[in-house]
């Protein structure tokens, strides 16, 4: 994907609008008696790029649609720039919305799609024909599809369609840009390119941007902050580093990557396995058993009979400079260990495992 050219930066395709804050205040929503969102509060800063991350069914898309005005909450408020927008219709909210399946108008050309929002305005607010053409051309240039103005959406690839969808949303100068799984329907390589491209666009426009994803990699790479939802609850909001280093709950920890759960106990705010002290804090946990979660890379291979855990290698493979081992501990647990050390991966080879990090939660 080409980077945004320096010349393009100077044009006023997307006039430097003052970025808007978005406040979500105790939003709740039920569908046919089932609670989808419960008491969600979230302050989104002006110009922030924030990800709503969660597994399917966590309510993240519903929350985005409530912000857009495509759904209405049963309780709570949505504010744009400090002004109550809860009762505003979707047209009046002036948001840009990018759908997972593009939702391009297939009977209109690419240029027609991008110009749609401008043409839809009442005559008094509608820019002149030449002004609309100028803006469409500038946006086509922004998404690097200038030669495609007269094509139809069916003639474009998925990645190109999603770029058109973004240009169409930007054309109406939205106060907030909302994206619903924008890369969900694309293959891996296109997805990576588009991510970088979206980040560039965001840097350029400085617009408040909220996007929904179930891909933690995408959220961690792109966003200033991540809001993690689980079963209709907002589990944690923080920078990508925050949520990885200090996951607030077990769902957050599990959702952000593989881990294995080990039996441990805490004494004076410190985690122990047997008599060995672990480099894992157990703050705000009563003395006694704790649930210890260790990521595959938070183990170190040591000599048999040394380390915190004794185990046998069951299988393993090397990929991209890491050995991925499936090991069985002596108390019967099977989990994954990643190590940079080349390991011969012999079955039933005996090893010791030293725990170098982890997260503990009350049992």
């Amino acid at each position, binding site marked *: 994907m080409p980077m945004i050219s320096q010349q393009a930066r100077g044009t006023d395709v997307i006039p430097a609008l003052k970025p808007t804050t978005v406040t979500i205040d105790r939003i709740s929503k039920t569908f046919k008696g089932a609670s989808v969102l419960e008491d969600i509060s979230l302050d989104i800063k002006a110009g922030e790029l924030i990800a709503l991350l969660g597994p399917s069914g966590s309510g993240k898309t519903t929350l985005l649609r409530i912000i857009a005005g*495509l759904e209405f909450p049963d309780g709570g408020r949505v504010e744009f720039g400090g002004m109550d927008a809860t009762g505003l219709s*979707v047209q009046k909210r002036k948001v840009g919305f990018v*759908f997972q399946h593009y939702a391009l108008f297939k009977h209109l050309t690419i240029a027609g799609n991008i110009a749609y*929002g401008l043409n839809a305005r009442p005559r008094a607010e509608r820019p002149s024909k030449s002004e609309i053409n100028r803006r469409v051309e500038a946006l086509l240039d922004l998404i690097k599809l200038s030669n495609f103005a007269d094509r139809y959406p069916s003639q474009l690839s998925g990645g190109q369609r999603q770029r058109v969808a973004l240009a169409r949303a930007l054309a*109406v100068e939205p106060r907030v840009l909302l994206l619903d799984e924008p890369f969900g329907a694309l293959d891996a390589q296109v997805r990576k390119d588009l991510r970088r491209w979206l980040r560039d666009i965001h840097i350029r426009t400085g617009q408040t941007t909220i996007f929904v994803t179930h891909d933690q990699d995408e959220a961690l790479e792109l966003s200033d902050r991540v809001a993690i939802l689980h079963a209709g609850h907002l589990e944690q909001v923080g920078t990508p580093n925050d949520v990885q280093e200090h996951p607030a709950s077990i769902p957050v920890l599990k959702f952000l990557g593989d881990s294995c759960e080990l039996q441990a106990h805490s004494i004076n705010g410190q985690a122990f396995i047997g008599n060995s002290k672990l480099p894992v804090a157990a703050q705000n946990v009563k003395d006694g058993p704790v649930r210890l979660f260790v990521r595959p890379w938070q183990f170190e291979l040591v000599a048999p009979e040394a380390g915190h855990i004794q185990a046998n290698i069951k299988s393993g493979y090397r990929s991209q400079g890491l050995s991925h081992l499936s090991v069985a501990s002596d108390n019967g647990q099977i989990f994954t260990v990643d190590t940079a050390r080349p390991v011969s991966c012999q079955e039933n080879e005996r090893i010791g495992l030293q725990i170098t990090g982890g997260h503990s939660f009350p049992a």
Partner: protein
Amino acid sequence: MPDQAVSSNAIVPGKPNRLVTESTVVRIALIAIAAAFLVLFLILPLVAVFQQALVKGLNAYFDSFADEDAQAAIKLSLYVTAIAVPFNLVFGLAASWSIAKFEFTGKSFLLTLIDIPFSVSPVVSGLIFILLFGAQGYFAPLLRTLDLQIVFATPGIVLATIFVTLPLVARQLIPLMQEQGVGDEEAALTLGASGLYTFVTVTLPNIKWGLLYSVLLCNARALGEFGAVSVVSGHIRGLTDTIPLHVEILYNEYNFVGAFAVASLLAGLALVTLAVKSLLEWLYADDLAASAGH
């Protein structure tokens, strides 16, 4: 569905695959049976209509249309159709739009209601109108005061035709709109478009082919409607006879050339409808595939 076509092509690349096709004998037999049915029930009757109409030559054929009663019947049929088809177009659009794009209680009940004209015999439908608007009907006193004649007059024929063709447009559009979902409309709304602007610029273009099909069908059905119209018309020659009723009268009078000549109009209409439909499919195959595709 195009996807299925692709996958079956993948199993059978080029020539028939022995594992998934029948033996030659069975295939030929099945095709022959299908062809025989087509000839017997579609092609032979059609040929017969034109053959009987032309049996006494072209002059006799065209004389049948010169008859005043025949012309009156043709005019009435066109008049009724010109009212019934636009009415059903509007009703079908409104019904399918609200059923396919919105959730509300009583939706399945409404669907059942729309289907009633298809499940009720047209004769019964006609009788219902007699019961309501006839001389002894429920609304008879009211109609007498207003000096309105509904049964045995054009309004009754229009009502009966509308009733019988009511489900045609809605039934065609509902599954189409349901499959398309509301994604495009939502996109238009987020771009600031009003409801009406969205309907005209997004919803209508998405269903234009289905709509055109259903209007063609509705048109053919409205012109050819016999049962319900027969009950409410009263068969007054030159006044309340439509084309199908006129055909019946001529036939009962042993005027076979006249009957088949007028009938050939309806048969011709069917052929023209088919031709237009095929032409549209051929001209706009890409658009049709695209609108069916996503």
